[in-house]
């Protein structure tokens, strides 16, 4: 069984690109391969015109590509500040500058008031933000966000959409997996659709949303026709 096969996609500098698709389509697997957590059997992965195939996650992170986890992976026994500092330490051995960087990042993602709180006491929204903050603290060029909005309420989603836009405006390229369509529409410059491990569509979010193949992938065979008739 192959989770992802023959996927060909690219993300340009300073873009926000999204990857959508039904559950089990292989989105997270694709991310894991790109970030070095899984090894692809074949194919090329290039980052800034250099191959990163076979590199370990920490090496890829040091080159400027960092991922977050769909199932949040906080350092549960540490405070929010300490969590973010771990990310910040990737660029500085100095505790003082790591702390300063962490506080800056906390400001960007709106976690300043939670800095001294233990990560195990954070809400779902807090944990999602923490994932984002830690990754951001490594000063990435490319940020891979895996469903940072899942489980959030609409108000929290609006906030994090704003945060992500702010991050892009600071010059960070963003590639995100998302199920929340409103956010995908709102954020993405381009969208790829993955189904059964294969890319079935790509383009602007609105063009993709009207693509019959995409509708069928989500709603089942014949759904596109039914919707067209209904409309």
């Amino acid at each position, binding site marked *: 069984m192959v989770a992802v096969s023959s996927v060909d996609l690219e993300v340009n500098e300073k873009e926000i690109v999204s990857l959508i698709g039904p559950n089990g389509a292989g989105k997270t697997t694709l991310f894991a391969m790109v970030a070095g957590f899984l090894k692809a059997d074949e194919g090329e992965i290039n980052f800034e015109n250099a191959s990163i195939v076979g590199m370990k996650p*920490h*090496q890829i*992170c040091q080159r400027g590509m960092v991922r977050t986890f769909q199932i949040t992976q906080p350092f549960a026994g540490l405070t929010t500040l*300490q969590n973010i500092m771990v990310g910040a330490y990737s660029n500085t051995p100095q505790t003082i500058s790591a702390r300063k960087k962490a506080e800056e990042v906390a400001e960007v993602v709106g976690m300043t008031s939670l800095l001294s709180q233990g990560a195990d006491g954070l809400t779902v929204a807090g944990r999602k933000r923490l994932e984002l903050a830690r990754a951001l603290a490594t000063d990435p060029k490319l940020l891979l966000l895996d469903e940072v909005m899942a489980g959030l309420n609409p108000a929290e989603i609006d906030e994090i959409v704003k945060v992500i836009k702010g991050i892009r405006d600071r010059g960070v390229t963003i590639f995100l997996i998302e199920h929340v369509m409103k956010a995908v529409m709102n954020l993405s410059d381009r969208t790829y659709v993955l189904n059964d491990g294969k890319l079935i569509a790509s383009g602007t979010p609105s063009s993709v949303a009207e693509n019959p193949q995409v509708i069928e992938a989500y709603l089942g065979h014949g759904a596109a026709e039914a919707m067209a008739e209904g409309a």
Partner: protein
Amino acid sequence: MSNLRRHLAFLVLGALGLIILPYFISSRFYIDVLTLIFFTAYLGQSWNILGGYAGQFSFGGVMFFGTGAYVSSILLTTFGFPPIFGIFLAILGGAFLGLIVGYMSFRSGLKGSYFALITLAFAELLRVLANSVEFTGGGVGLFLTYAPGLSNLQFETPVGFYYFALVLMFISIAIVYWLEGSRFGAQLVAIRENEDAAEALGIDTLRCKIYAIMIMGAMGGAAGTFYSQKYLYLDPPIAYSIHLSVEMLLVTIVGGMGTIFGPLVGAFVLHTVNEVARHFIDTPGLSLIVYGLILIIIIGYLPNGLIGAFKKKEKKSGSNSLDKKRSREES
């Protein structure tokens, strides 16, 4: 800042207390017990770095101790190499063994109980090896001569060894104190808390774990020299005794893993309990049962060790100055 100063003052006072303590104790017995407490606390601290901070539980910590002991003792008996230099080669030997064991086990992704078991296997392997080769003295063991003097790291009075052990313990506390405020320490803790996340955030987890076990190995090596110069005899069952492997993790778990003073507190409490039980209970073996019961109670009811329990109580009572201090140190 005043908190930090108070903390520092407290530390200096404690250290001074331990330094002048021998002038108030005339009993050789108590000096020996205290020496043993420092020695165990020191070994516990070495275990704490890999186990408490990096979260990699080893069950064969004694292998570094035994190897260090053999390195300096063989150098001394065969070549007349003075232990005051031999201890540095014992440290190197322990670190090198740590490199080998760490590379082999972490490289292949061993963690949790698998890592614990592989370290146990390494220690046992070394014990059997030490038994079967000639240059270790085999099963007969190595006898060292008693010739007090700094170059031999031997002393005329038990108080000399007391200070030797005390210095080792101070050094171990300094190492962990540094760890708490450093990037390396934060990286080890990140690995303990979540290895995947640590790796994703740019931490070379393999390298960090190998460094941690090398530090543990170096510390164990020095302990080996201390032991062989104090007790003047070494054979494979002593050098690679499972009992010592267990003791170093026990004092740390009882005192509090991943804390600066956990191993010292644990060593102090366990040795005291042990001695008191032995003193008041005449029936042979019964003191061990009492010791075991107290151990069960501590581990069962205080999963974070004595220091963890103390911190929780501080937090509950609203005075969280200690926690603030700790978070400042840790960050």
